[in-house]
């Protein structure tokens, strides 16, 4: 347990974003090895490794690959680099430091599923990272890793880098596909799942940046090596993005199963300004808040779920005792309201009314009964919206009401935010 650099092990190497440096560090050995194998063997290997998707849902990657219908071509691989979850900045880091590692992962996945054209959908805001990937693609093409008959093995593969233009919803897989097809980024009904009918109506696999970055290491070191790391159901490592009130925010790659306490207190240097921990939020904006009593929970999909939250996309937002939980929830609700695509009513209208109510609390206009009204709106969205964006918009505020209902009451009785003064002093 603890710090275990696998994806990030060479990140201290200078100019790792250059092909030559990446090759010297052992880069593309995994792809070369993969080309010596049968695609089916690769799928089995990834299944055996226990790798689960790092984008949020934690679906087993090998199983996802094997859902592709046999004999239907062309099929596509889409690498989801639309990282937009508030609190997450790992994909940006992985791309910036080692774009070739991302590319090598994509090439291995493409070969394994029998695809000849892969896409990277990167969010519009990540322009420097887009440029880094573009350079990497050009270098890899010149180096013979991309194009027709790569490395003389009779396999054709090309990668198209596609830049989004500012829409959180496009991180949702079906909305991403719609956006990639040139439309407004609205989600589609599932089923049919993308593996059956995805991009341009063809079978499509979508994997997150961090997920594909694991593939070269699995191919190089074997499934057993990978499966030896982590917990029974959460193999390998994860890059955790720590932010908020800690002394050393940043990305930390830890073996799955490491206690949250170690991440926050040891690697993050504890809560800043010698303050007490009030709450933290694993997974990103969507995920439920946890309390100091949950610090000994393991960083693992299932353990965090058991504790009442979700590991999501691997964020860790730490909040100290001066934090106004109502304001924190308000920011997230405003975010979801802003990012709701407007396709379905529960999400479009629900996030709007939740945001209005939160503004009322902040402005001191909230009335007794408004907390229950918030919960009521939450229930009307969760499970009734078209895609997970609507559901997720309610999870954090509802968990905050569960643990910090008194703060909402104080906003009502004091006609405004009781934390305002302390927060201002804090930043002064």
């Amino acid at each position, binding site marked *: 347990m603890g710090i275990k650099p696998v994806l990030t092990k060479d990140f201290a190497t200078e100019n790792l974003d250059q092909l030559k440096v990446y090759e010297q560090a052992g880069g593309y050995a995994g792809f070369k090895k993969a080309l010596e194998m049968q695609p089916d063997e690769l799928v089995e290997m990834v299944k055996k490794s226990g790798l689960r998707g790092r984008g949020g849902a934690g679906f087993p990657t090998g199983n996802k690959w094997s859902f592709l219908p046999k004999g239907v071509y*062309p099929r596509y691989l889409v690498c989801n680099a639309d*990282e*937009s*979850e*508030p*609190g*997450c*900045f790992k*994909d*940006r880091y992985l791309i910036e430091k080692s774009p070739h590692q991302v590319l090598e992962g994509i090439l291995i996945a493409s070969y394994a599923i029998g695809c000849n*054209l892969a896409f990277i959908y990167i969010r*519009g*805001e*990540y*322009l*420097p990272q887009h440029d880094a990937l573009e350079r990497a693609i050009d270098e890899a093409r010149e180096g013979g890793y991309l194009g027709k008959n790569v490395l003389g093995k009779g396999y054709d593969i090309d990668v*198209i880098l*596609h*830049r*989004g*233009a*500012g*829409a*959180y919803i496009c991180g949702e897989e079906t909305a991403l596909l719609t956006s*990639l*097809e*040139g*439309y*407004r*980024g609205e989600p589609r009904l599932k089923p049919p799942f993308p593996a059956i009918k995805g991009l*341009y109506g063809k079978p499509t696999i979508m994997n997150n940046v961090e997920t594909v970055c694991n593939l070269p290491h699995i191919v190089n070191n074997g499934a057993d090596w990978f499966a030896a790391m982590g917990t029974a159901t959460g193999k390998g490592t994860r890059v955790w*993005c720590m*932010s*908020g*009130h800690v002394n050393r*925010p*940043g*990305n930390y790659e830890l073996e799955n199963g490491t206690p949250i306490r170690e991440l926050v207190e040891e690697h993050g240097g504890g809560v800043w300004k010698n303050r007490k921990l009030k709450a933290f939020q694993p997974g990103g*904006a969507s995920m439920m808040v946890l309390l100091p009593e949950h610090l000994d929970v393991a960083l693992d999909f299932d353990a965090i779920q058991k504790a009442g939250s979700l590991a999501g996309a691997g*964020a860790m*937002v730490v*909040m100290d005792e001066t*934090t106004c939980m109502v304001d*924190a929830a*308000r*920011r*997230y609700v*405003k*975010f979801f309201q*802003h*990012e709701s*695509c407007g396709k379905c009513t529960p999400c479009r209208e629900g996030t709007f009314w939740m945001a209005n109510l939160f*503004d*009322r609390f*902040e*402005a*001191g206009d909230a009335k007794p009964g408004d907390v229950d009204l918030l919960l009521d709106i939450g229930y009307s969205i969760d499970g009734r919206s078209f895609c997970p964006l609507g559901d997720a918009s309610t999870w954090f505020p509802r968990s905050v009401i569960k643990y910090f209902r008194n703060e909402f009451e104080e906003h009502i009785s004091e006609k*405004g935010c009781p934390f305002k003064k302390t927060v*201002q002093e804090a*930043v002064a």
Partner: protein
Amino acid sequence: MPLAKPTVEHIKGLAARYPSKQSAIIPALWAVQHEQGYVTKDAMGEIAQHLALPPSLIEATASFYSMFLTRPEGRHDVVICVNAPCMLRGADEMAAYLERALGVRDGQTTTDGAITWHSTIECLGACGGAPMMQVDHQFEENLDPERIDAIVERLRTTRAPHGGPPKKAEAVAPVKGEKVRSGAEGARPRAKRTQT
């Protein structure tokens, strides 16, 4: 203003790159914005013509994505994040400081046409370096008043980051004799605001 020849060639090339030419819409909009600074209805009409698609389709797509600008802005684009992870590290105070330093409100352009700024609730993916902002899409992290001053100073005297023609933004008079509101317009309620 008709699109420049290289942009037109680029757009035509994009259509051939994808299995479906419709996928070229977003990259084409980027190309137009790169050249002209923003996307006009005429330019969308031109995209439609070059891709042989109905103009309504281009407009439907363009209007969905928040990064496509529909009116001219300053030479430089400054976006400061005020979502929760940034808020925890003092983003509201930095946004208010930036507003005072520039003398114009959230979403407006400085009188010299140099900088358009706005706060955003959409996380920009640099929570580990909060408070942060993006300046012409480059990340500026761990902001403090001195850093903001230095960045503003640099932007006032430098050209637009891309090679396009200088944009003519409509200048807005600076806020005078009025208490400057916090920059976190996207996140702060309008009513009963007393904090500066």
